[in-house]
């Protein structure tokens, strides 16, 4: 009986809230917020509310280039893997109180968050396009740079409390260390979501569409969707770390959505206000400037644990 109940909870989380039924419209909404915020910052009116949805439907109705062999099959598979892993990451977020979860789901969440960018790297290299390869190489370098900081920041929060369970982390009282970690994660998010000033892999003026250059139609629609789901998962992770605990489920859900929205707005405004950095400047930024804070956070986390 207990197993069936747990299975039901897990399925509900993956498929309904915060999983697919909630996450897909939210992904489109966040994509719209991003474009609209950039437009407003530039003094434009910007796209209509349903724009990402129209783009998605239109892409589903377009053709795809003929592809053959193993590389062609892989190229078809990458966007699907990216979408499913991003959706899984959203499903793991501990939004509602007492929604289950298990020891170590933080590690699973980090792995699922990382898979889409792995897929982008693989997609660019398997497309055989020179622009795709340059974009993939940039994405790989970028991911090596920001992931150190990103993982260390999350690790410091987890290590200070001696747990790898997301729901336990979400219920912690706020401390200076946790805010340090949250700021470090926020600094990594523009690189993770390919936004200015770290929008190097899809730098349109330099390398066309980067790893996406050879993608078209439904496959491109899947990439767009996985990008939107990454938005939901990444901002949702920060939102669950910031949000205090609410006993009422609908208050918890509302606060989660409001916080995610605020983070999307913040990131979009930063993206609109900045220009793209060069790849070496970006790498130096993460390895020289931000890494210090992450190491400090981990050190203080360990110090706190030994003192306690």
């Amino acid at each position: 009986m207990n197993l069936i109940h747990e299975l039901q909870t897990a399925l509900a989380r993956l498929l309904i809230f915060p999983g697919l039924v909630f996450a897909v419209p939210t992904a489109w909404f966040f994509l719209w917020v991003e474009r609209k915020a950039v437009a407003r910052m530039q003094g434009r009116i910007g796209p209509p509310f349903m724009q990402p949805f129209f783009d998605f439907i239109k892409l589903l109705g377009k053709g795809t280039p003929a592809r053959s062999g193993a590389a062609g099959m892989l190229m078809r598979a990458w966007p699907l893997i990216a979408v499913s892993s991003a959706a899984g990451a959203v499903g793991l977020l501990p939004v509602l109180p007492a929604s289950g979860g298990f020891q170590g789901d933080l590690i699973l969440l980090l792995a699922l968050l990382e898979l889409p960018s792995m897929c982008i790297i693989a997609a660019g290299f398997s497309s055989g396009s020179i622009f795709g390869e340059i974009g993939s190489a940039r994405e790989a370098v970028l991911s090596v740079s920001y992931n150190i900081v990103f993982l260390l920041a999350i690790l410091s929060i987890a290590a200070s409390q001696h747990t790898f369970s997301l729901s336990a982390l979400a219920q912690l009282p706020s401390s200076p260390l946790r805010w340090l970690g949250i700021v470090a994660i926020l600094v990594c998010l523009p690189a993770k979501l390919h936004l200015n000033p770290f929008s190097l892999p899809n730098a349109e003026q330099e390398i066309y569409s980067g790893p996406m250059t050879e993608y078209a139609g439904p496959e491109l629609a899947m990439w767009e969707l996985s990008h939107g789901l990454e938005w939901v998962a990444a901002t949702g992770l920060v939102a669950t770390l910031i949000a205090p605990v609410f006993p009422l489920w609908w208050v918890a859900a509302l606060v989660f959505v409001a916080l995610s929205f605020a983070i999307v707005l913040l990131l979009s405004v930063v993206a609109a206000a900045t220009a793209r950095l060069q790849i070496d400047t970006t790498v130096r930024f993460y390895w020289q400037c931000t890494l210090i804070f992450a190491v400090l956070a981990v050190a203080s986390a360990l110090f706190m644990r030994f003192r306690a």
Partner: protein
Amino acid sequence: MNLWNKLMCYSRRHSPWLFHMNGGSCNGCDIELIASLTPRYDAEQLGVRLEGSPRHADILCITGPITHNAVNAIKTVYGQVLGPKAVVAIGSCPATTNVFIESRTLDGPLNRHIPVDVFVPGCPPRPDAIILGVAKAAEILAERGNKPPAESVMIPTVDENNVCATEAKEVRA
């Protein structure tokens, strides 16, 4: 027409993604195309996005009188755009080769090589005429789907309802 087809038609009309290609243009029309995306004209309100790859595009925007060197590139890129697709010829050059007519370096006009759906004449055309042309092309594309292109449409240069005309009058006055 069932619901899915209606939705698809509506989506195609509201999400034209452009790929811009220069066929030997003097850069005048290219600047006007970019101007149509800037804050003053803001074509993104119609869902327009300038894409980096022809694979992503729905509408191919071609400027210039089509030089010998450009012909093969234009045919290749036209093949790389996946259906349903439309072509907008921006400026007088791709329509008639303009002042460069009978030049030995040219192989224009554009419709000798690929089917053109909308001509936006002008030297250069105003950004609002270009936006009108793109919107018209999106409409054509949505109605036609994957069927082969029919005859082309000409965007009028002077139209009483067009913003161009009213704005030009304001400037003169």
